C-alpha cells in the first residue's frame, strides 16, 4: 500500500532546513561594496588602456606610411577605435542601477537581461566590427593595388587576406544573428507568461 504524499509536506521539509549561516556584518557589506566599485573602475581603465595603446600606434602608422591610401586607412582605423571607446563608455553608463533589482519583477528583469544580450549580439556590427571595416578595407586595398603594380600574382595574393577577413566577419555576424534569434524566442515566451 502506498502512502499518500502531500506536496505541502515538502514545503515543511524545505522551510525547516535549519537557520543557515548568519548574515554578513554591515562592515563586511560596506567593504565589499567599495571593492565592487574599485573593480568596475579598474575594468574601465583596462579597456581604455587597450584603446590608448592602439590609437597612438595606428596614428603613428598613419603619420609614417609612405602610401597616401595606407595613411587614410590608418586614420580611419583610429576614428573607428575612438568610436568603439565612446560606445563602450555609453553602454557601461547605461547599466542597471542597484535599485532596479527591487523595482523590476523577475519577468521584467530577466526580459531586460535577455534583451540586453540580444541587442549586444545584433549591434556588434554597428559598434565593434563595423567601425574597423573602412580602415581595414582601405589598408588591404592599398596593399593589393601596390601588389598589382609589381605583378598580377602578388596583387591577387594580396586580396586573399581581405577575403578571409570578410569571411570571418560574415561568420561572426551570422552566429550572432542566430544566437539573437534564440534569445528572442525566450523573450516571446516570457511575454506570454505576463499575459
Amino acid at each position, binding site marked *: 500500500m502506498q502512502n499518500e504524499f502531500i506536496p505541502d509536506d515538502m*514545503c515543511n521539509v*524545505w522551510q525547516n532546513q535549519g537557520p543557515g549561516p548568519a548574515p554578513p556584518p554591515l562592515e563586511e557589506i560596506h567593504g565589499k561594496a567599495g571593492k565592487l566599485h574599485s573593480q568596475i573602475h579598474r575594468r574601465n581603465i583596462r579597456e581604455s588602456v587597450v584603446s590608448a595603446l592602439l590609437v597612438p600606434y595606428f596614428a603613428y602608422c598613419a603619420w609614417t606610411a609612405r602610401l597616401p591610401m595606407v595613411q587614410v586607412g590608418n586614420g580611419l582605423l583610429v576614428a573607428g577605435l575612438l568610436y568603439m571607446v565612446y560606445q563602450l563608455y555609453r553602454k557601461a553608463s547605461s547599466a542597471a542601477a*542597484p535599485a532596479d533589482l527591487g523595482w523590476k*519583477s*523577475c*519577468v521584467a528583469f530577466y526580459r531586460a537581461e535577455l534583451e540586453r544580450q540580444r541587442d549586444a549580439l545584433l549591434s556588434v556590427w554597428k559598434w565593434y566590427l563595423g567601425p574597423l571595416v573602412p580602415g581595414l578595407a582601405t589598408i588591404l586595398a592599398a596593399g593589393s593595388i601596390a601588389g598589382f603594380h609589381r605583378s598580377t600574382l602578388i596583387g591577387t595574393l594580396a586580396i586573399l587576406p581581405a577575403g578571409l577577413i570578410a569571411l570571418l566577419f560574415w561568420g561572426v555576424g551570422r552566429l550572432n544573428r542566430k544566437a539573437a534569434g534564440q534569445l528572442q524566442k525566450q523573450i516571446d515566451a516570457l511575454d506570454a507568461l505576463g*499575459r
Partner: protein
Amino acid sequence: MGANEQDRWYLEAAAAYGAALDRLARAYEADQEKRRDLLQEVHLALWRSFQGFDGRCSLRTWVYRVAHNAATSYVIRQRRSRASALVSLEELETLPDPAQNERAAGRRHSLARLLELIQQLKPLDRQVILSYLEGLDAAATAEITGISPGNVATKIHRIKNLLSQRFHQGGNHAE
C-alpha cells in the same frame, strides 16, 4: 535615502529573511564554495538596492525580487561556463526521474532530490517553485515574479503534480 536608512533596511531584511536567502542560494547553486559566494553576492545586492527603496511595495516583495534577480544574473553568468542546459517545468515532467529506482529514504534524501530538481529549472520556474516552497501564496508570487496570477496558479498546479510524482513515499518507485 541616507546611508543610515539604507543600513537599517538591510539589517531588518537580513534578520527577517536571512534563512530564506540561504535556502534560495542553495536552490541556485549546488557547489558549497560557490554557494557561499552567491549568498554574499545576494546580500551585497540587497544592501545596494536599499538606496532606492521607498516602501511602495512590501519589504518581503522587495527582498525576494532582489534576491531572485541577483541569483538569476548569477545563473546567466554561470550558464556560459556550464555544459548542462536548464529545462522548464513542462520539460521536466517528461524527463525520467533519476532517482526512480530508489526508495525515498528520509527527510535529508528528499531535500537533496528536491534541490537537484530545482537546480535543473529555468529561472522563472525556479522562482515560482521556491515561492511555493517558502509558503507564499499565488498573489505574492505573481507580484514578485511578474507572471500573471493565472499562470502562477497553473505552474503551482504543475509543481504539486510533479512533487507528488517524484516524492510519493514508500510507493511504486522501487518496484
